[in-house]
């Protein structure tokens, strides 16, 4: 058969796409065999049914809200994807192009439909991939937001704690300074009372008052130093040339009086003078010896060594007794750190070693510690001898 003899009827019925003509309200007037076979109906059975009734519920709503108004307004729609329900209830996905054509007896919709099952599968895969990507992005964004928030909270908390710490330290500085005056009054009053005739019991009580006031004074001095080191400009030193052995000996002599039940030995190595703040270094020795007395074995001597080397002066304090645990060594020089609680005389508030290190560092030196069962505990404070060039003395 030549193309001239093309049977238009057959072309309509067997076109390679579904063809449907409906009234404006969707009532099917005619559909081709291709369409009716795709959805499993007889062409005759479709006549009189509404096209939209062949769709899934979602497709029917979409028809009502989207492409029916479009057909009216712009006279055509293109590439609308629809799910139709096959007679055996399975879903057949089709792509719809449609035009609205006006004839003398009214307007009609002419629809062409294309099977798009495979393409639909592919598009759904794309959609799924997009959805997964979006979900991941959302998760990532959420995680980032949470992280930012945590960081903001952290820095806020840090600022707050800094402010609190500063306030507390300032308060320590003020209170310890203000406590000095009443303490001086207590000491003076008890000294005056001690000069008169006293019973044995009164003398003993006055002795307690004096010792307690001395202890309180040392604690306050430590607190003030701590406050200076932490809040103020640091512990100030006034160094001058000192005969190391001489002033360490003097210091040991004074400590023998303060700690009558301990045996203090002083040994010296080398000779010469160092550029030091004698009062502050005596404070170091006092703190270290007080620690040895508090935590060491008093049945054995405490040895204070002063040593002049070529480039540094070293003062060390050694005692026998319990080992300082490894965990404690790491934080030993931090404020408020204390060794094993000795039930009796806790000398200070845990600032002694912190102040030792602060003073050593103010001299350009440092402090170290070693502790073992056989060797005992040894604190060594070193002062570089070229200190004059490194640390400018206060005016």
């Amino acid at each position, binding site marked *: 058969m030549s193309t001239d003899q093309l049977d238009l009827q057959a072309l309509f019925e067997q076109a390679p796409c579904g063809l449907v003509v409906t009234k404006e*309200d969707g009532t099917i007037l005619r559909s081709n065999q291709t369409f009716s076979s795709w959805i499993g109906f007889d062409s005759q059975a479709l006549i009189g049914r509404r096209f939209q009734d062949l769709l899934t519920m979602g497709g029917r709503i979409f028809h009502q809200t*989207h492409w029916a108004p479009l057909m009216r307004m712009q006279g055509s729609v293109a590439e609308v994807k*629809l*799910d139709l329900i096959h007679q055996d209830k399975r879903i057949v996905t089709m792509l719809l192009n449609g*035009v609205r054509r*006006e004839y003398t007896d009214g307007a009609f919709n002419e629809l062409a439909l294309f099977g798009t099952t495979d393409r639909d599968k592919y598009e759904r895969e*794309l959609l799924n991939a997009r959805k997964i990507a979006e979900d991941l992005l959302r998760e990532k964004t959420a995680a980032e937001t949470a992280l930012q928030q945590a960081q903001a909270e952290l820095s806020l908390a840090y600022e707050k704690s800094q402010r609190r710490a500063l306030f507390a330290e300032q308060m320590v500085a003020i209170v310890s300074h203000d406590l000095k005056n009443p303490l001086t009054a207590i000491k003076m009053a008890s000294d005056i009372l001690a000069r008169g005739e006293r019973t044995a019991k009164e003398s003993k009580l006055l002795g307690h008052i004096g010792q307690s006031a001395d202890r309180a004074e040392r604690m306050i001095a430590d607190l003030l130093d701590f406050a200076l080191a932490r809040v103020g400009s640091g512990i100030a030193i006034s160094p001058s040339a000192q005969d190391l052995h001489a002033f360490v000996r003097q210091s040991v002599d004074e400590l023998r009086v303060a700690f009558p039940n301990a045996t203090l030995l002083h040994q010296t190595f080398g000779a010469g003078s160092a550029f030091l703040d004698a009062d502050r270094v005596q404070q170091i020795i006092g703190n270290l010896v007080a620690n040895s007395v508090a935590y060491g074995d008093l049945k054995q001597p405490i040895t204070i060594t002063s040593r002049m080397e070529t480039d540094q002066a070293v003062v060390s304090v050694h005692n026998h007794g319990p080992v300082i645990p490894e965990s404690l060594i790491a934080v030993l020089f931090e404020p408020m750190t204390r060794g094993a609680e000795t039930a009796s005389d806790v000398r200070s508030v845990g600032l002694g070693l912190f102040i030792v290190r602060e003073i050593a560092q103010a001299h350009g030196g440092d402090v170290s510690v070693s502790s073992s069962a056989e060797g005992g505990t040894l604190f060594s404070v070193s002062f570089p001898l070229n200190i004059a060039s490194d640390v400018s003395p206060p005016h």
Partner: protein
Amino acid sequence: MDLQHRNNVNVMGDGPATLIFSHGFGCDQTMWGYLVNDFTPRFKVVLYDLVGAGQSNLEAYDRDKYNALGGYAQDLVEIIDQFASGPVILVGHSVSAMIGALADRQSPGKIAAHVMIGPSPCYIDSDDYSGGFKLEDIHSLLDTLDSNYLGWSSTMAPVIMGAPGQPALGEELTNSFCRTEPEIAKQFARVTFMSDNRQDIAGLTTPTLILQSTDDLIAPLAVGEYLHAVLPNSTLCVVDNVGHCPHMSAPSACCEAMDRFLSPWEGAHVD
């Protein structure tokens, strides 16, 4: 916020009262084209697009604000304040009828009357109410919207399809009246079809004309009758029409009913 730009507000006509036309889910204000010319000689007419639809400013689309119809109602009240003069009659199609009712509740007294075209206060059936849909139907719609993502995305224009007997349409016009950002369309579909405004609408005393199609899948006759029963000042007018858009497919019947209802507010008719 420039309301004109945000909602693509168009003002036309003249009269002592203002008709504000608010479109429904799916398309935009162009769907009022069959109706407005009848009213511009006697009324001031305000057309606008809901944010997210048509030529509205998509940058104004706030997922939180528009996660409930109240967000759209708030916009409507703002539009009334800025563009209306005299008594305001809201002509709302479909979901916009409920947006109008919510706006009336939010700011009582601003709306003198409602014309509700194919309204439904609740789409999903419950024990004592028949809205016409089951929850899975709404999921099926979301799925259909999703599967039309590629073709309807505003970033991908479909091919030209010439319409016989009409001037050739530009490529950018094809499907454009109903084209929305897919994510916005899905959220709006969810907000629309999952909404239940029965509490909000019951007892609303503002005069209301309900334009009910005889055969409407989205808003069945029973829903129109339900609304008529719970709105004490309502008139139910059943229009012989198949489909959800009688203002497009049966405009003259709609105009007739509206003319009767609107006569107390209309201005002089100048021919």
